[in-house]
């Protein structure tokens, strides 16, 4: 099965599903967006009073990306159990961020973005380094989701690559633009439910048709390495995955915006619950990759293993289920990226850097403009089609893993200082990129996080600086 060959789903059915879910997301998003006071905090942070259910679900839905439904089965297919485990370990990023989330909520009750924290804690120079890293990561992430949308919808339903990409970005942009963070979080709840329920249905049906003992004996006979619990590459990928995810979560405004949007009493629990719930998703989708391997299913495009398996086992119904899961995964991640990145640009660049005298109305207007601008830039960057997205993902790992310790230490250590944070981010990024190029892409985050930890530790211990955490309580 190649991306250009026969689609799994009749285009008419696919268009029907797209129309139904697009209308639903936009209608709900616009409706929810009308609630609340209508000020900038309402638009950017949904009123700062989100409860446990919505907070947990939005973390889940944002973290279930197109990659989780495509790359995790590929990991299972290529590296077996450790492929699944290593992808699932990305959930550790959310779980380990939980105590930091509570600390952020305590230290910055009026904060809006991760950039706010870096600027107030380490100053403007560190902020520039941090913003460069987050910009590269965010555009890489946006591109992988946009290109994933084009490629997936083409493979599943025969849509033209550009049409599929335009539809997904367009729908996510419309409801994010009109409903703000409240629309993003509200639709995330339904999207996370859809993703989890439909994945469970696909997995249960798949293993009913091809039972687990049969899968195990086939793997034992033909691919015993996939069942090896001491697979060296698997162990390294697992470490990399955990550290990469920590870098993604600790620095990116997707997760910081959820901290500021949630009630203080639920913020820690939502990150723990969201992380634990999320971990089951790549394990389940990864196990589908194992079934494909056991069945010796011919695959020309390994990242299509999940749709191929679903269509092979469950026919057109299976293809329709996968289509809905993928559409929900892509829109739930894209809306979060658009909203939180627009907040970051509006708050940190427009308001704090260029127009500190801007009114609340102007700030909200700027955030809306940023949503549209980001969507257009993403469309432009993703227009040329690239078939390999994994390399883009691993490349950014070398950068974001270097931010873990400057963020974590900055929240707890008074002695953490600007020079150490800048040196940690730069040295970690450089060693990570070297490891990416000279050793292997999947070890970049390990090197980056290790060196930046060392630099941050030494730089903080040798410093006589003592930061006053009260300085983080800036007026919104």
């Amino acid at each position, binding site marked *: 099965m190649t991306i250009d060959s026969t689609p799994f789903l009749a285009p008419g059915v696919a268009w029907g599903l797209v129309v139904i879910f697009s209308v639903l997301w936009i209608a709900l998003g616009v409706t929810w967006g009308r609630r609340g006071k209508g000020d900038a905090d309402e638009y950017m942070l949904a009123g700062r009073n989100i409860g*446990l259910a*919505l907070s947990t679900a939005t973390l889940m839905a944002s973290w279930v990306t197109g990659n989780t439904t495509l790359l995790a089965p590929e990991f299972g297919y290529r590296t077996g159990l450790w492929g699944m485990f290593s992808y699932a370990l990305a959930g550790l990023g959310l779980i380990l961020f939980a105590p930091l989330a509570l600390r952020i909520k305590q230290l910055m009750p009026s904060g809006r973005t991760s950039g706010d924290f870096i600027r107030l804690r380490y100053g403007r120079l560190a902020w520039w380094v941090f913003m460069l890293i987050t910009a590269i990561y965010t555009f890489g992430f946006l591109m992988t989701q946009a290109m994933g949308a084009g490629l997936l919808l083409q493979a599943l339903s025969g849509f033209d690559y550009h049409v599929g990409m335009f539809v997904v970005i367009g729908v996510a942009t419309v409801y994010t633009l009109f409903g703000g963070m*409240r629309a993003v979080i509200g639709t995330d709840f339904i999207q996370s439910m859809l993703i989890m329920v439909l994945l*469970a249905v696909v997995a*249960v049906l798949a293993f009913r048709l091809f039972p687990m*003992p049969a899968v195990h004996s086939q793997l034992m006979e033909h691919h015993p390495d996939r069942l090896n619990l*001491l697979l060296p590459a698997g162990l390294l990928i697992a470490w990399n995955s955990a550290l990469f995810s920590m870098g993604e979560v600790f620095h990116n405004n997707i997760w910081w915006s959820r901290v500021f949007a949630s009630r203080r009493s639920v913020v820690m629990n939502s990150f723990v619950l969201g992380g634990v719930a999320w971990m089951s998703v790549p394990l389940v989708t990864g196990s589908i990759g194992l079934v494909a391997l056991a069945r010796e299913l011919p695959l020309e495009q390994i990242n299509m293993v999940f749709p191929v398996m679903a269509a092979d086992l469950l026919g057109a119904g299976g293809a329709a289920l996968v289509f809905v899961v993928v559409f929900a995964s892509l829109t739930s991640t894209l809306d979060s990226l658009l909203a939180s990145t627009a907040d970051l640009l509006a708050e940190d660049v427009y308001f704090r850097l260029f127009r500190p005298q801007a009114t609340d109305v102007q700030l909200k207007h700027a955030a809306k403009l940023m949503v549209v601008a980001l969507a257009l830039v993403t469309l432009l960057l993703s227009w040329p089609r690239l078939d390999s997205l994994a390399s883009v993902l691993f490349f950014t790992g070398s950068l974001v893993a270097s931010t873990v310790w400057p963020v974590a230490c900055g929240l707890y250590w008074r002695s953490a200082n600007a020079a150490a944070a800048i040196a940690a981010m730069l040295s970690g990024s450089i060693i990570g990129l070297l490891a990416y190029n000279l050793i292997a892409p999947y070890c970049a985050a390990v090197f980056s996080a290790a060196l930046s930890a060392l630099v941050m530790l030494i730089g903080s211990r040798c410093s006589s600086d003592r930061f006053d955490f009260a300085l983080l309580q800036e007026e919104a």
Partner: protein
Amino acid sequence: MTMVPNTLAVLIDATWFSVVLLGSQFALGLSVIVLLLIWWVEWRAGRLW
């Protein structure tokens, strides 16, 4: 080049293989139920948003 000896391989048996896969499916199902339950409790108390 050092060859990794085969004795380092630890292969998971059929029982544990099933435990891992069934456990992940159970965890996924449980997540849905718990999340819906929390949503219902918060919705009844008017504490969703």
